[in-house]
């Protein structure tokens, strides 16, 4: 661990030195970016930078370099600031040129009439931690960061404990009731008991009742019960390259100047707007972006940058791909009460990904409807197991009350001039677990109908229409939706698998716990790497196999045109793709195609069977 890093501890000093050298040559800005990029390229150097995700804000040094793993929740209007300005020293009357970049506040004695003032433009993004990030992902990235925290006096022991509590919750006693916040859909803006939050919040906030929310700051997290710091990120370069809902790792200069909250008593804005755009810096710190890296995934077990070591990592893992797959399949089979076919489909679902769009059609999505799920909290347990495997997930319990009251679609609040988030504002490849077994009879009100429509749109087109009140705006997304239901789901799905339990354990919870306990952490970690990796592999199909697939399709239709439709071919092509990828094969082979056909046949015969069994299926 290096002794001192000025570029981490005092990045502004570096910036200013470069500015001073430049003699107003505008190239210095590019140089600054080059410098920091270069520093971060060095081996392991990015792990020296403390992360806002892991270290509580008050342990971080103001004006030091920090990183933040986040989702762009909202984009505010661009603002103009003094890029370069001149100050007058009151004693000597000498004018000094100063740089206003990467800062919120100017130095004393600004000469506002100076000719040398340069106005520049920047934009503010409102960023929140990646919604639904699994506890294990947080923990691992936290532990790896805790190895080296050079610039803070912070000893992570206490924070560690709070994560251990989470771990206990998850790993050792999964049967214990989860904290209520995962079930209750209401957004609880405060009082979620995180030590970190409580310390930073004003004590008065704990006494306020939820009805008194207007006085309290709503940090606008997409999912209820989320915690962690939100951040106002000031972006200087490449504004067009960022999109809403991008997941980024941002390296920037932390600014928590308390002056920020005192200033700005401009009457142009409504109080709501001011609260949303200028929250106290102690709660929502400012981050002046120096470098941002778009994240393909937030799995801390995988090298995140597409560098050389990643390709090395991939090729080394590819060797054991097949064996890991077999183990994972066995594990999932146990979890799904011995149903191997359902396990196979669940595995395919977990590695699915919208890899491209053809005009309006998203390709590669694979929404799975697992019907015939046993009632009484089986689905809840199932979700916990899925959560253990994927880095990002959210369980939406589709009870009537939730559907009627919850806000799924983000909505623009024109009074506060911000995008009020909804549960469907999720990062790419988040696993959305829709629990339809919770749905009871009753009436959906208009917002319930809207929510169901939004879910339907999400599943069919992989897009969410954000509500801008005067119009809607379509945001494409890439969310893996898994629907568990008793009968066929009321939502559309790409593929329905009726669960056929082979075992009926007398005590479901005990059964699942035993299965879970039987897995070593190293094993689970392998599964995690496997799932994230399989998704990133490239895939192609040769002309020869294309021909074979075509022939096959024609043959199938020859026998019974009703049995196979274009829709079925769509699905089988996706299944074939996922099946090949799950085995680490990057091209479709004839065998792969036959296998895909085979399991699809099995599944279809099972649905048919179910249909004739129930008789009342539509």
């Amino acid at each position, binding site marked *: 661990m290096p002794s001192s890093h000025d570029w981490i501890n005092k990045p502004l000093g570096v910036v200013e030195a470069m500015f001073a050298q430049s003699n107003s040559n505008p190239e210095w800005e590019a140089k600054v970016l080059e410098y920091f990029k270069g520093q971060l390229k060095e081996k392991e150097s990015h792990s020296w930078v403390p992360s806002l995700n892991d270290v509580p804000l008050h342990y971080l040094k103001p004006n030091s370099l920090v990183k933040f793993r986040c989702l762009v929740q909202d984009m505010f209007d661009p603002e103009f600031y003094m890029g370069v300005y001149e100050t007058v020293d009151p004693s000597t009357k000498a004018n000094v040129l100063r740089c206003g970049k990467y800062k919120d506040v100017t130095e004393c004695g600004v000469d506002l009439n100076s000719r040398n003032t340069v106005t520049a433009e920047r934009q503010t993004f409102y960023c929140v931690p990646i919604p639904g990030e699994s506890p294990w992902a947080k923990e691992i990235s936290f532990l790896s960061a805790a190895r080296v925290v050079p610039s803070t006096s912070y000893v992570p022991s206490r924070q560690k404990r709070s994560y251990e509590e989470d771990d206990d919750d998850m790993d050792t006693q999964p049967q214990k009731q989860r904290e209520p916040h995962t079930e209750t859909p209401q957004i609880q803006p405060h009082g979620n008991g995180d030590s970190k939050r409580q310390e930073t919040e004003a004590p008065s906030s704990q006494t306020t009742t939820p009805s008194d929310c207007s006085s309290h700051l709503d940090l606008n997290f997409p999912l209820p019960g989320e915690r962690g710091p939100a951040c106002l990120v000031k972006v200087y370069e490449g504004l067009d390259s960022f999109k809403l809902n991008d997941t980024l790792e941002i390296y920037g200069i932390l600014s928590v100047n308390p002056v920020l909250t005192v200033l700005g008593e401009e009457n142009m804005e409504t109080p709501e707007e001011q609260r949303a755009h200028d929250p106290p810096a102690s709660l929502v710190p400012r981050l002046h972006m120096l470098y941002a890296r778009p994240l393909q995934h937030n799995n801390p077990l995988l090298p995140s940058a597409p560098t050389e070591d990643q390709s090395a990592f991939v090729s080394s893992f590819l060797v054991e791909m097949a064996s890991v797959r077999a183990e994972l399949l066995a594990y999932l089979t146990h979890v799904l009460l011995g149903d191997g076919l359902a396990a196979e489909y669940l595995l395919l679902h977990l590695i699915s990904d919208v890899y491209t769009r053809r005009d309006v059609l998203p390709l590669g999505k694979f929404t799975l409807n697992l019907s015939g799920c046993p009632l009484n909290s089986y689905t809840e347990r199932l979700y916990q197991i899925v959560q253990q495997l994927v880095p990002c997930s959210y369980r939406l319990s589709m009870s009537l009350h939730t559907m009627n009251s919850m806000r799924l679609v983000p909505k623009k609040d024109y009074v506060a001039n911000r995008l009020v988030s909804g549960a469907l504002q999720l990062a790419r490849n988040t696993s959305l677990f829709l629990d339809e077994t919770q749905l009871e009879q009753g009436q959906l009100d208009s917002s319930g109908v809207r929510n169901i429509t939004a879910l339907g749109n999400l599943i069919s087109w992989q897009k969410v229409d954000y509500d801008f009140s005067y119009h809607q705006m379509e945001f*494409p997304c890439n969310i893996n939706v898994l629907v568990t239901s008793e009968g066929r789901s009321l939502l559309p799905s790409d593929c329905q698998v009726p669960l056929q339990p082979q075992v009926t354990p007398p005590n479901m919870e005990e059964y699942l716990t035993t299965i879970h306990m039987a897995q070593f952490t190293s094993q689970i970690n392998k599964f995690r790497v496997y799932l994230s990796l399989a998704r990133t592999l490239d895939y192609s199909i040769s002309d020869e196999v294309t021909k074979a697939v075509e022939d096959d*399709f024609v043959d199938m239709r020859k026998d019974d045109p009703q049995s196979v439709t274009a829709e079925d071919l769509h699905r089988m092509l996706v299944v074939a793709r996922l099946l090949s990828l799950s085995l680490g094969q990057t091209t479709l082979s004839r065998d792969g195609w036959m296998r895909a056909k085979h399991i699809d046949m099995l599944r279809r015969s099972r649905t048919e069977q179910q249909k004739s069994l129930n008789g009342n299926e539509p």
Partner: protein
Amino acid sequence: MSSPTSTPGRRKRNRDDIPATPKSTAKAGSDGQVSPPSQRRRGQDSSNGDLPAMPTSPATDIASPAVHDTSLFSSPPQLYSLEVDMSSPLMYGTPSSRVEGTPRSGVGGTPARQRPDLGSIRKAPQVDLHSDADGAVASEQALGQKLVIWGTDVNVGTCKEKFQRFLQRFIDPTSNEDENAGLDLNEPLYMQKLEEISVVGEPVLNVNCSHVQSFDADLYRQLISYPQEVIPTFDMAVNELFFERFPDSILEHQIQVRPYNALKTRNMRSLNPEDIDQMITISGMVIRTSQLIPEMQEAFFQCQVCAFSTRVEVDRGRIAEPAVCRNCNTTHSLALIHNRSAFSDKQMIKVQESPDDMPAGQTPHTTIVYAHNDLVDKVQPGDRINITGIYRAVPMRENPRQSNVKSVYKTHIDVIHFRKTDEKRLHGLDEDSDQKLFTEERVQILKELASKPDVYDRLSSALAPSIYEHEDIKKGILLQLFGGTRKDFSQTGRGNFRAEVNILLCGDPGTSKSQLLQYVFNLVPRGQYTSGKGSSAVGLTAYVMKDPETKQLVLQTGALVLSDNGICCIDEFDKMSDSTRSVLHEVMEQQTLSIAKAGIICQLNARTSVLAAANPVESQWNPKKTTIENIQLPHTLLSRFDLIFLMLDPQDEAYDRRLAHHLVALYYQSEEQIEEEFLDMAVLKDYIAYARTYINPRLNEEASQALIEAYVDMRKIGSGRGMVSAYPRQLESLIRLAEAHAKVRFSDKVETIDVEEAKRLQREALKQSATDPRTGFVDISILTTGMSATARKRKEEVAQALKKMIQSKGKTPAMKYQQLFDDLRGQSEAAITKDMFEEALRALADEDYLTVTGKTVRLL
């Protein structure tokens, strides 16, 4: 300066108590030259005039120190704000009385009105570029031509002259703006407008910047770059000209020039620091308007001791309270009298960038706009507007207790001119105002494309390439996208003819109908997508809502109105409730929407094409049944569709193979390969937009002849079998389709080939949807009356047979229902279902021959 609250330009004339020298003081220019480049205010000049030795003037008292601190910012290129002298032509006019009702006329007699929209005129003296500084003071007159306003290259005299010349000479013979309706295009345009002002008495002159540009590019450049200086000069020029011409006219205040349509039109996203203090035009949508804010322009102070009163102008939002009474020299004796101070109206408006201007995946930007005086309350939330105004940036106010400043500026636009872009839609005038502008090259590309012989096929295959085949359906939709020519018969009383083509797709589930709809919805600028299941009549038409802020009732338009001039895609048409569907009757033929609810009665335009998709009632299409029976839609509605297509699984091997190939390719072809094969979606969009705006084909002689023949032929087919096989509606839709096809070719004439294609397409569609499953003939009455002619004939036959049977039974007043049914079945050679039997009974009941009560049938 840039503050929204800064001193307005010509407030001098609102004073009545300060004895200012009329016709201004000829020499005050010296002030500007002598005083250091500090913040001395113009107010001082006017009150001082020749009396520079009046240091106790309240204006002077407060001037320098306070202003010096607060003048935080000025745009980078012009950093010092200097005062302007009274001798400058900027100070035209004389201070006039505020007394109302006094007859007055002429420049001098008409009070000027403050223009807070321009902010204070930058208090810059004119500087002489050629001679030394003293010369400027000496003889203003002689050097007038060389003087420019400090920090700019604007010479007031030249500028004024140029503008007057522009007003007097500018002719725009090609003008087609609706504002110029009724004006003689060959006379100077703006002189006619001035005449209008003299008649109407509304002292506002809107000037189209593109006119200025085409007349004098240099003047235009100055206007864009230094609006704050140039617009007052324009005002002055106009007023001189106006009162010279109409010396007797009485106006409320002097004429104000409102330029609009600055060609430097930008969308909100491209505004950058370089635009500060320049004139810009941006488009956007109003999302919020504030309450009216009274903004103090002039504070009125009265001495508590001697009742001496004085006025202080508000400078950049601050009032400098005079510390000493000038009359009795008491300190701190002056009190502000609110109701004698002068206020102006101000309103804050938030504008959001219109959805069309935005890159995908980002959120829209918003901008704050300040409207002043009569522009207040001109726009409502939801309006789409073009704003012309001056872009401002103000630093965050300095906190006196804080030594450092937040380094961020607040930006806003001081609006000069509003133009609603959707205004016309409400008034029902024709053609889009927001015509898409095409560059020369783009038009060239489009024309080249149009000249290709296979353009029709090319375009139709470019439509939704991910959906396989269904060529005719795609062609139909393509024609729908282009639409027919709008014809106006309102003079003859028939009203507008529908130009929009409506299409219904029905067929098996899973035949990518929804996908096609989604594609169309994404392609057209004013598309709406709704699902029959989820939409109510209200959601389609319009609803009345109470605005939470103002508590006013507001009419919120629904999908059909929103897609005016666009396409409304309705999925799951069959699942729509009857009441919802009934709304469509009016829309699909009359193209209007009548609303009568909550005391609001109105008729909205809904010139929308409907593209609907319906599933058969039994999940699979039953080829043994007619279209009506399959989808269970009322025939009144069906007959309003120009084309009804069936999307069925064709079930043949060659098709399967092509389909499989297409799908596999879809999944595994790279982006580039796809793009090579098909036209870019953007090109298609532009092509359609261009054709819709610029091409209005008319029928030529041969085409009309061909249409007549086609119609007669269609009528003939059925007449042989005693049924009607075509109605005038079919002819109308044939015309529409032919026109649309001509549009595809960018042709101004509808020719025979267009008619041929229209005929072919209509025949194809009819073949699919109107074939009588019993006879195999195309029978239009299936669609128009809901029943094929043969079916009707059959029904009658059964009824007659039943009647005969009953009559043959002799006089039996009552019969058992079941008995009768069995008898009839036994007698008839064809199988008779219970439905048919019941129908026959009902027919006889209608004839008053019998009644059915429960299980017995009684004769009457």
